[in-house]
């Protein structure tokens, strides 16, 4: 096999370690790194992308699992959604597991990876609101060494990937905190999200963190609503909320994520989306506190 791999080395490299991958990308900066290929090939098949070269990341075993570091889980970028959906992972980060399970049919979840979800940054990426709510960081491996940035900076393009950089790991703090992920889809099966809500109730920091996905190009954090509802929770007690508070939280979140447009009335579709987001966040909060 290696002979063939070497022979194709011009255009296709299949490195088996992260260093090799970074070196391959540095040697051919126009190459497109591809892990699962579910987003890349969809664009290629529809004629939107012609990769000059490919760096296949599927054989880098070090990024296909996870490890623990300083109270955080260091998830490899090559973790597939199928792997993240399994019960052992769900015990670790339940909301990410729930997001991974709902990400698509088995054919897609077997191929699609966490890193690809972040790097492609599709609005409907299911892992993204979870990562935003968990305030994850991403570790980028590049020719000049590693660096770690918040995932939000990568998603919004504040601090994009530099040439030759690869998303290697995702650092997610391991919280002993209730966390939920809820998603509305257009079909009774795994599908792209119409709206998704990830919510973490973090008693250690006395915070509620919520992120709404798929309604905007990036997952949105309704910070005011989070602070408001965190002020309502009796953190030292049984951490329950009146259901009017949950309802109000849902509406607050929805109004923050789908704002009123001054001067114009929101179209019905936006209102419906707002109701969807409100219902999802109300239920997410209720379940996290239950």
């Amino acid at each position, binding site marked *: 096999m290696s002979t063939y791999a070497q022979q194709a080395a011009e255009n296709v490299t299949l490195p088996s370690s992260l260093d090799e991958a970074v070196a391959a990308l540095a040697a051919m900066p126009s190459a497109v790194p591809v892990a699962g290929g579910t987003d890349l090939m969809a664009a290629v098949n529809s004629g939107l992308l012609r990769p000059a070269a490919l760096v296949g990341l599927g054989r880098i075993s070090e990024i296909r699992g996870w490890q623990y570091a300083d109270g955080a889980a260091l998830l490899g970028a090559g973790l597939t959604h199928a792997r993240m959906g399994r019960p052992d992972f769900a015990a670790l980060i339940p909301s990410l597991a729930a997001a991974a399970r709902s990400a698509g049919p088995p054919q897609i979840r077997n191929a699609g990876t966490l890193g690809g979800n972040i790097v492609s940054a599709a609005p409907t990426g299911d892992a993204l609101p979870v990562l935003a709510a968990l305030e994850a960081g991403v570790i980028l491996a590049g020719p000049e060494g590693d660096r770690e940035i918040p995932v939000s900076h990568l998603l919004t393009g504040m601090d994009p990937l530099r040439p030759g950089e690869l998303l290697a790991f995702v650092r997610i703090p391991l919280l002993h905190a209730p966390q939920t992920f809820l998603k509305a889809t257009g079909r009774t099966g*795994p599908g792209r999200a119409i709206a998704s809500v990830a919510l973490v109730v973090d008693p250690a920091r006395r915070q509620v963190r919520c992120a709404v996905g798929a309604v905007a190009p*990036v997952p949105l954090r309704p910070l005011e609503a989070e602070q408001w509802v965190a002020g309502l929770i009796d953190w030292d007690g049984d951490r329950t909320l009146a259901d009017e508070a949950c309802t109000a939280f849902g509406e607050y979140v929805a109004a923050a994520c789908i*704002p009123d447009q001054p001067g114009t009335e929101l179209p019905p579709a936006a209102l419906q989306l707002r109701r969807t987001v409100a219902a999802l966040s109300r239920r997410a909060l209720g379940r996290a506190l239950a």
Partner: protein
Amino acid sequence: MTDQPHSGSHPGSHGNSGAWQPVPGGGDYDPDQTMHVSFAAQLPPEPLPGEDPLSAHGPAGPPPGAPTEADPATTWSIPVIRDDGDGDSGEYSMGAFPSSWDQAPSPAAPTQGFAAGMFGQGAAAAQAARAQGRTAPADTGHETGRDPGHDAGQDGGGDGLPPGAGPQDAYAGAWNSTYGGPQGGDAAPWLPSSAPAADAAWSSVVDDPEHRQSAGPGEQPPRQQEFAYDAFTRPDGYGGRAEDRDPYAPDVHALQDPHALPDPGGLHDPHALNDPHGLDGDGHDASGRDASHGDTYDRDQGDRDAYDRDQGDRDAYDRDQGDRDAYDRGGDGPHAEDSREPGAHVPDADGPDADGPDGDRPDPDGLDPDGLEAAGQEPDGLDAGGRDLDGRELDGRDDPGPDADVREPVAAPVPETRSEHPLASYTLRVNGAERPVTDAWLGESLLYVLRERLGLAGAKDGCEQGECGACSVQVDGRLVASCLVPAATAAGSEVRTVEGLSAEGRPSDVQQALAACGAVQCGFCIPGMAMTVHDLLEGNHRPTDLDVRHALSGNLCRCSGYRGVLDAVRQVVADRGADDTADDPPSRVPHQGGPATPEADQ
């Protein structure tokens, strides 16, 4: 059936500029209608330093009626809404949004799906884009120079919308003014690039072609808002990743063409994509038909040009096929040297291109020997004999001596190091046999290689977007949609297709059960279903009906209603259970993540 924009195919694809508009066509309900609302205003134009860039600023205070203090004494009930325990299925089916997954969005609302599907690979492409440096502004011209044969027609056609012309600048300005913040200092470098052009082009897809034609550059700003959202929706358009548009730059023409993406005979036609010969004909069908439309013609030229470039590799394949044809018939066809010349086109490959502007529709089945071969090859998808013959032929050609040919520098025909269609040669291990693949474009999917190069037509080409599951195969024991696997990265992996399920010419028990239980009607989805069921039963020997439905959730079938498949799985489980009375508990080492377990699901 994807989120890809199929804008032109919709009756209401005109006049939807500006922000959200009512359902085109005036009906109360349009299943294709999705959201089209500008959320641009919600994000702060300039995130404050130290602030979470994802923050959404809502109203000043909580909604009225909300409790203002912690009131733990108030009783409340847990909202009981989730009794399905189903991590895979949609949490709530919101009926008013039926179209997010399976249906093409309305042209008035391309934004979400567009961003999700088309530009989903954002940062991956970023690396390529950045690596190509600042060549972006010159890209189109660069391409023109590279492909004189094709582009001559385009230039002669007098492209009314040169890629760098005013409208895009107007858009770029709009974009910049709207989203100057997040990009910060990065805004300037990409402005001259073709990135905004693509967006402008996309807007034009949404827009009324006549409007676009008649409007001068200065008249574009009325669509600023829409454009702004479009631009913003793309994750890669956000910030420095704007340059990511570069890889798509060659497709600007295609995007500008209102017929480009939705063209039923074009890229979205699975048949056309499957059939390298047919593509030529279909591409010309597009341009020929559109040529009668006067004003859209120029952009159709671009479209055709994009097609032509797109299929450069397939041209090569065509030529190879032609060679093979000639070889088979005694060498009265074009010679091998022809196909090895990068710039030259075998007449039968070139002829339709030249004919295109005349609006001729060359009959792909009638005019050229490739077409004849296509006609002979394509319908035999299910014919095992033909398939095998085809596979052998290909093998024989590619591999006259085992290893010798493969190890030769077969990449010689690559005209230059930075080819538009970089080729790769590799070997796949399919159903236990080594199958060398030479000079395949590295963007070819595993599905394409299996079907068109290796002659294994069992995996079906349904959507090419991973939605339908008809192309399911196992790669290294994991069920994947082969249309979404770059074949080059599957080199060295163990690929198992539906042809590998049968042993000694007898269909597997799953296949027999599928046939016996009436799961097969038209049969198109059944190879994928068989692969899925095999994959399921490998990891779960006693699946419940819910497990089966979860596993089959990625295999769309429009005929049978899945009942027969469920029956077939039950029958297989019963038969296998009767065979080995070992009664082992269902092992949980599935390659696919397995069905969602409710207890682990929050």
